[in-house]
């Protein structure tokens, strides 16, 4: 069973267990990924030194490459937490969710996605989504059922809910960025700093350019007077703090004991 082949020779039970658990969780924050990696070493090869996470992941990705799968790293749009997910690069469509959900459920997601992309804030209200229930493909769905389905999306980490409004979970952005850019090239918003897909962010009131909150945090980190990188007008919004994992851990020592491998609900 051992991969005696040159490329796959790096795959040991440590890597395999890591992949299994990452896959099962869907998406994990960096802190949890590091714990996961340490756990896999401890259980499956305790004498080995724990490889630096970036190299560890690069090595696994080199094996996954020919399968069009990748461990992708991204950042949550609201507070800049690094997240990781095992992403299928082959299917560039919503059908990657296909086996989890029925046709009408997928269509509901599609409708919610469109509303989110078209919105100014990156959020679509529950009411607006539910009003589209009659237009769904497949079996007829009532609003009550649609509410339930939306919660399923939240639980499977495709959507985030905040005060009755929905936006895309970091995982959905990681998995579907390419699909979204190809399908909605005119409606899609892009961050002026990192050029990545932008769902939530801040925008300049003068020239309209947009930036992710974590990108804003980094860009204006040491600026006493933040100005728009494009038109130089005064940047009118509150500058968020750069995500600091160390600070986070100090503050949440009592919380961390409750935090198992589940990634934080937003």
């Amino acid at each position, binding site marked *: *069973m051992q*991969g*005696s*082949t*040159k*490329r*796959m020779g790096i*795959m040991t*039970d440590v890597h*395999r*267990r890591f*992949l*299994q*658990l990452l*896959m*099962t969780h*869907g998406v994990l924050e960096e802190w949890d990924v590091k714990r996961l990696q340490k*756990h896999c070493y401890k*259980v*499956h090869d305790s004498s080995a030194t724990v490889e630096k996470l970036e190299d560890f*992941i*690069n090595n696994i*990705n*080199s*094996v*996954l*490459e*020919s*399968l*069009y*799968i*990748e*461990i*992708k*790293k*991204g*950042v949550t749009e609201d507070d800049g937490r*690094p997240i990781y997910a095992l992403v*299928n*690069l*082959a*299917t560039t469509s919503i059908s990657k969710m296909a*086996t*989890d959900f029925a046709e009408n459920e997928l269509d509901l997601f599609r409708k919610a996605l469109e509303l989110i992309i078209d919105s100014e804030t990156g959020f679509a209200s529950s009411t607006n989504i539910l009003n589209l229930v009659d237009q769904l493909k497949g079996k007829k769905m009532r609003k009550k059922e649609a509410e339930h389905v939306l919660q399923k999306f939240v639980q499977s980490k495709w959507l985030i809910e905040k005060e009755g409004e929905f936006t895309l979970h970091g995982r959905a952005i990681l998995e579907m*960025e*390419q699909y979204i*850019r190809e399908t909605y090239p005119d409606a899609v918003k892009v*961050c002026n*700093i*990192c*050029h*990545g*897909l932008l769902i939530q962010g801040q925008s300049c009131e003068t020239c309209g350019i947009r930036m*992710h909150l*974590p*990108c804003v945090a980094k860009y204006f980190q040491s600026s006493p007077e933040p100005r728009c990188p494009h038109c130089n007008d005064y940047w009118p919004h509150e500058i968020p703090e750069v995500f600091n994992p160390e600070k986070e851990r100090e503050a949440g020592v009592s919380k961390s004991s409750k935090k*198992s*491998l*589940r990634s934080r609900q937003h």
Partner: protein
Amino acid sequence: PFLSPQGDSGWTQSSFSSPILWNNLDEELSSQEESSSTLQSSTDTESSPRDPLEDKVTDLVHLLILKYRLKEPITKVEMLRVVTKEYKNQFPVIFKKASKCLEVIFGIDVKETDTTSHLYALVNSLDLTYDEIPTDDHSMPKNGFLIIILGVIFIEGNCASEENIWEFLNMMGVYDGKEHFIYGEPRKFITRDLVQENYLEYRRVPNSDPPCYEFLWGPRAKAETTKMKVLEFLFNLRYHPPPPKKKNEQARK
């Protein structure tokens, strides 16, 4: 930029293509397979066009790992659908390569559980004996449940019919199809989750018609506990019952 668009994030190494991977897989497989001539001859590393057969293997691998994540079994019909009519005749080769891939890269075994209906289960092939972190949201209360099932299997002579297990579970107030506030949906839990974790084995009774199923201890159960310990636990449960579960344990799922 730390939010990387597309796949050009620097995680993946570029330039060399898949023939090496499949080439090496070929070396490990038995010599019976036919179609490998295109694959074995391609020892050049640079961008040769991908063999469409490889694409089918990739598609099948994707479906299998999705099924693993969902903790669902898979039928041959579902697999053939992915492989497509055009490649139907090469299914055995494609299946073999995909299974090998799963084994070597993910540590997952594709096991046929029902030869008549061609049903396959995706189980862990790794040694999880010391893998103690609560995985997949399993938490303490479910271990008690497992031990009781192991006890029933033991008492029934190391092999309990599915009917027996359900009879027993019903006595505990756990019913097929009825979501339990701690254990979730019980059928899924005992026939899939615990099987995937290698705690239980769930198999078709040979030559049974209509098909019926039975439970045995899985390899992980055998490694992690003993029959004596299980009996001890059950004894304590009966004669020294634990205090009633508090409200917040309920919410912890």
